[in-house]
């Protein structure tokens, strides 16, 4: 091996050891454990084949979480991306008070999800919460927003959109600032409307950013469950249980780690499918070079 190669590997070694221990190994460990029962005491866990997966197929909460997670993703991703673009356009324009607006939009990003979930919990409280007081003005009071299976998932989605949109705005803002102003001038000279200019010029130029944000939004919709723990604990009647939250409950409330590993495998398969899709559909430039 050449000197350069030895140096390269030595420089890589510390980071790689940790990555192997806490990312690569756990992926295989998850798969391995999903075929084994939950260990009891110090005895090694017996091999049970596909039993954990059979349990999963019969587990209603799992299916409910999967469906919820789908709607959660559908509810949060397009909405937060659309709002992020709108916010970025506003903040990037010559609008009065745009520094204030940028601050207002971005603030949720720096706050802990667990802390803002507490605030939102208060916001949604029946009888005297702010939402109840506001809707009371219109005579539609008496709703328990988080306690009703019909509305609970919607509430959780609202919180996630509120938390994420300002974060995604930043990426769009960076992209908008790299669009040369001469394009807007040329479009104005040609008499193009602002809507037309946005649809035919700005939006296509924002495409790489949209793809980048999309990937982030997808990962977040499977990763971010902090507010579920605080606001609903998956309830009422599992209406807000998401996949990772179910893993957490099975693994650390019921301590059934064998089954929790099988559930994690499903989560990993979904994420891997998105990763592959990203490599196929996305320009490689987004990651390499």
């Amino acid at each position, binding site marked *: 091996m050449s000197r350069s190669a030895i140096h390269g590997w030595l420089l890589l070694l510390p*980071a790689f050891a940790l990555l192997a221990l806490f990312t690569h190994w756990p992926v295989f460990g998850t798969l391995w454990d999903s075929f084994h029962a939950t260990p009891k005491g110090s005895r090694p866990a017996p091999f049970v084949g596909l039993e954990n997966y059979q349990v999963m197929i019969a587990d209603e909460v799992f299916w409910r979480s999967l469906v919820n997670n789908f709607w959660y993703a559908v509810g949060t991703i397009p909405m937060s991306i659309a709002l992020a673009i709108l916010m970025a356009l506003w903040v990037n324009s010559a609008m009065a008070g745009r520094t204030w607006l940028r601050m207002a939009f971005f603030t949720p990003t720096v706050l*802990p999800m667990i802390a803002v979930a507490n*605030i939102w919990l208060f916001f949604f409280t029946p009888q005297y919460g702010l939402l109840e007081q506001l809707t009371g003005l219109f005579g539609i009071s008496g709703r328990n927003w988080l306690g009703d299976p019909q509305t609970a998932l919607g509430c959780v989605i609202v919180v996630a959109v509120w938390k994420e949109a300002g974060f995604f705005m930043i990426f769009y803002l960076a992209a908008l600032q790299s669009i040369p102003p001469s394009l807007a001038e040329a479009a104005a000279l040609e008499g193009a409307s602002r809507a037309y200019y946005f649809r035919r010029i700005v939006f296509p130029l924002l495409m790489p950013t949209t793809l980048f944000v999309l990937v982030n939004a997808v990962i977040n919709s499977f990763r971010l469950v902090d507010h579920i723990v605080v606001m609903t604990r998956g309830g009422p009647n599992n209406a807000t249980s998401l996949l990772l939250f179910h893993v957490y409950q099975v693994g650390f409330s019921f301590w059934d780690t064998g089954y929790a590993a099988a559930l994690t495998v499903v989560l990993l398969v979904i994420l891997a499918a998105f990763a592959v899709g990203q490599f196929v559909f996305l320009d490689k430039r987004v990651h390499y070079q």
Partner: protein
Amino acid sequence: MRRLETAAAWLLGFLWILPLLYAFWTAFHPPEFSTRFVLAAPLTLDNFRRAWEAAPFARYFLNSFMLVTMVLAAQLVLCTLAGYAFARFEFRGKDIAFFLVLVQLMIMPDVLIVENYRTMARLGILDSIPAIGLPYMASAFGIFLLRQTFKTVPRELDEAARVEGAGPLEILWKVYVPLARPVYLAYGLVSVSYHWNNFLWPLIITNSVTSRPVTVGLQVFSSGDQGIDWSVITAATLMTSAPLLIGFLLFQRQFVQSFMRAGIK
């Protein structure tokens, strides 16, 4: 039309900041005014005092501070070395190694909680601050960001230092690191806010006052026997967010630019 748009933007901005305003109102007024919005309501710091006395928040703050510092220090060293290797060294298997690093961007430690818990149990470090930080220390995002940055450093600078007899680590320290300073600042801000705010993994791995970060402390506090004393809970909530919130309000431009910089690489 323009005026209507400005009004819409302001309305959205107001809606966005409303939950926070609401929290401020409740935290700084006596409990009887927590949901009654009267301008004459007296201001008070009593809710903060009660929250501070009701739980060991001083210890939680110290734990969070130690956690964030430890993670950032380790990330800076590990990611700098690895980013340098990927940017400026040729070796067999480099592409595969880089791919194996990028895997972590998709499969983050946040979803590997079951296995990582077992690993920590085997290592005998459950319920400790290093256990919270370890899975995040080799950050794929950091390695990627620094690799991109180091690649933009002109090779001539590198070679000039080599002619003067500097070794690889010396070149890294004297040429690459100083040039990447804004990226380090950007990465630092992103990392600190991520780990100060992180919740699920710390919740799982910690079990005592001596290792819980503020986020977990807040959860234990607000779901405990406080009942629903919203005044105290919102005060505690604002307290735990305060360091980042104040930092953000003071250095707004740097924050926004740092997140931007971290995003476009």
